[in-house]
């Protein structure tokens, strides 16, 4: 586990590439708004090994989402390099980035971002449609993913017929349906109550443990951050702290401690 800031990555050198699935090197992101330049990232470096569960924290506006977007290939750095599984992706074109998002990364957002008026099943199928997977295989894999998040009985529901927690679980199913190696979640529990937040974190921990998926979660809540194996703190576009979690929480255990779920929330149509 890499503990310090980007400088350490520099020293590490290319021979350690095999371990780091994500290697961001002195990345800058500058947004131009008219005459004003906003320096969202200030030479941040981050290296994440396969199978890690990283929690990213930091005050609002410190560049967490910007970093996530670059890692997820939704955005390109203004300066610096980004290696995804050893491949330099900072110079790829839009179509190539789309393919990487489709094949290698799963995204989970705070606001769920399901396609409206489209069933849970079809939302989960979406990445497979763009991957060119045939319809019967699509159906099989989408159902499998919905089963992992415990929503097999809701596949016909539209997003507006699902609770917030259910919508986020559909989004997680969608993020993992194409068997990516990384799942990125930007404040996935920001819009959820404690119980559903814990349920979502339980799914992430399960995926991380059972499938060795690399997971990065941005959160404001220290409780949520403690479900990870490592906490990276941002401030002013730089990484200020990068420490392992001393006593990691187990979401499944926490769920067992919680009072029985308010069934009505889960059952509302």
């Amino acid at each position, binding site marked *: 586990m890499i503990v310090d800031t980007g400088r350490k990555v520099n020293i590490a050198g290319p021979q350690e590439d095999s371990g780091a699935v994500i290697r961001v090197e002195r990345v800058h992101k500058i947004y131009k708004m008219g005459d004003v330049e906003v320096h969202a990232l200030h030479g941040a470096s981050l290296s994440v090994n396969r199978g890690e569960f990283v929690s990213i924290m930091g005050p609002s506006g410190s560049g967490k989402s910007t970093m996530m977007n670059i890692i997820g290939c939704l955005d390109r750095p203004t300066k610096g390099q980004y290696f995804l599984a050893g491949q330099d992706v900072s110079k790829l074109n839009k*179509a190539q980035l789309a393919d990487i998002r489709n094949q290698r990364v799963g995204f989970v957002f705070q606001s769920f*971002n399901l396609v409206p*008026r489209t069933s849970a099943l079809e939302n989960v199928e979406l990445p497979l449609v763009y991957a060119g997977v045939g319809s019967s295989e699509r159906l099989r894999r989408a159902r499998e993913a919905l089963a992992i998040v415990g929503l097999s009985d809701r596949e016909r529901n539209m997003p507006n017929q699902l609770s917030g927690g259910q919508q986020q679980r559909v989004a997680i199913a969608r993020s993992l349906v194409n068997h990516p190696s990384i799942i990125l979640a930007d404040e996935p529990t920001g819009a959820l109550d404690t119980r559903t937040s814990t349920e979502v974190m339980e799914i992430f921990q399960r995926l991380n443990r059972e499938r060795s998926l690399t997971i990065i979660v941005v959160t404001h809540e220290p409780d949520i951050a403690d479900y990870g194996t490592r906490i990276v703190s941002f401030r002013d576009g730089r990484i200020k702290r990068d420490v392992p979690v001393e006593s990691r929480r187990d979401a499944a255990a926490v769920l067992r401690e919680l009072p029985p779920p308010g069934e009505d929330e889960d059952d509302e149509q």
Partner: protein
Amino acid sequence: MNLIAILKVAMRALGRNKMRSALTMLGIIIGVGAVIAMVSIGQGAQQMVSSQINSMGSNMLYVQPGNMMQGGASMGMGAASTLTEEDVVAIQREIPTVAHVSPVVRSSGQLVFGNQNWFVQIQGTNDQFPEIRSWKVQEGDFFNEADVQSASRVIVLGRTVADKLFPGMDPVGQTIRVRNLPFRVAGVLEAKGQSMVGQDQDDTAIVPYTTVQRKLAGRTIPAIGQAMVTGVSETGSKLAEKQIADLLRQRHKIGAGESDDFMVRNMADVAATSAQLTTIMTLLLGSIAAISLIVGGIGIMNIMLVSVTERTREIGIRMAVGARPNYIRLQFLTESLMLSLLGGLIGILIGAGISRGISGVLGWPTLVSSLSVFVSFAFATAIGIFFGYYPAHKAAALDPIEALRYE
């Protein structure tokens, strides 16, 4: 790329705003409908004209007094005509390639039989009329040369007139009154149906032209409105055209370089004129259709731009999970194409309906040609792609992060 998935999304998007989609298609519907109706009616009209011309005999010539260039083509009744009875006789006598000549003097009047009466256009002509018009007498006989010479009060009725005045009776030999003069009904012409301008050709009565001039005339004697001439053969009629012109110029003492005071027209000219009219009509309606199609296309572009804006966030989601820009472009192009093709299809159905309706009313043989259907579809496709491209391109060029952040 997954075409079925694209079609499914497109159908859902258009189905969600049914009213909006329908209104958007309206311009295309009207444009394509106009094209289909116009082409089929135009073709029907042309077919009608050529079959009429064939039924009249393609070697027929018209000699008319006056000159179209001087605006004197149709002289009013009683006006001094530059085409005289003697001219007609001379054409018959002096030109060997001419088979038949018959003058036409027009009049009109109330026909009375018992308590039935009927107002008709009366044609005064000679005994060669049935030959020239290739119009057979169904009952009785046509009047003969002697009747023409003596200006007899004999009348031959068109089918419609016979049916009106003599319902369930044989008109031949009966006496009817025309302008209070008794006329003997010599015969009834066989039914000929509507003319190319939708007039009932059987709503007519025919008498010797001498009778019109001497017995039916009021204060002024009606002049010869035109002469119908047939040549001995098709080539004979071409020769005759020139010979008639030479003869009349000579008779009317028209020097070289002076313009004619008459016109000789053959059926090919008539056909050409009507073809020209059809072309003008086609161009006129065609430009209306084109404008409508362009307006329809702009409507599609407008709605597609609205749709792209409304669905910005959805586009962002699709891009985030791996849709390439080209896929997004194809998605929106498919939607605009669907609008224009569906509009085209409805337009074709409506256009076919209109032409069917018009053919029912006017008795024209309209037909929706597969060419016009093909051209309409090609146009609708072109419009869908042309006007859909910009919105689709705009959608494809969206930045995924900004699209996701769009409220």
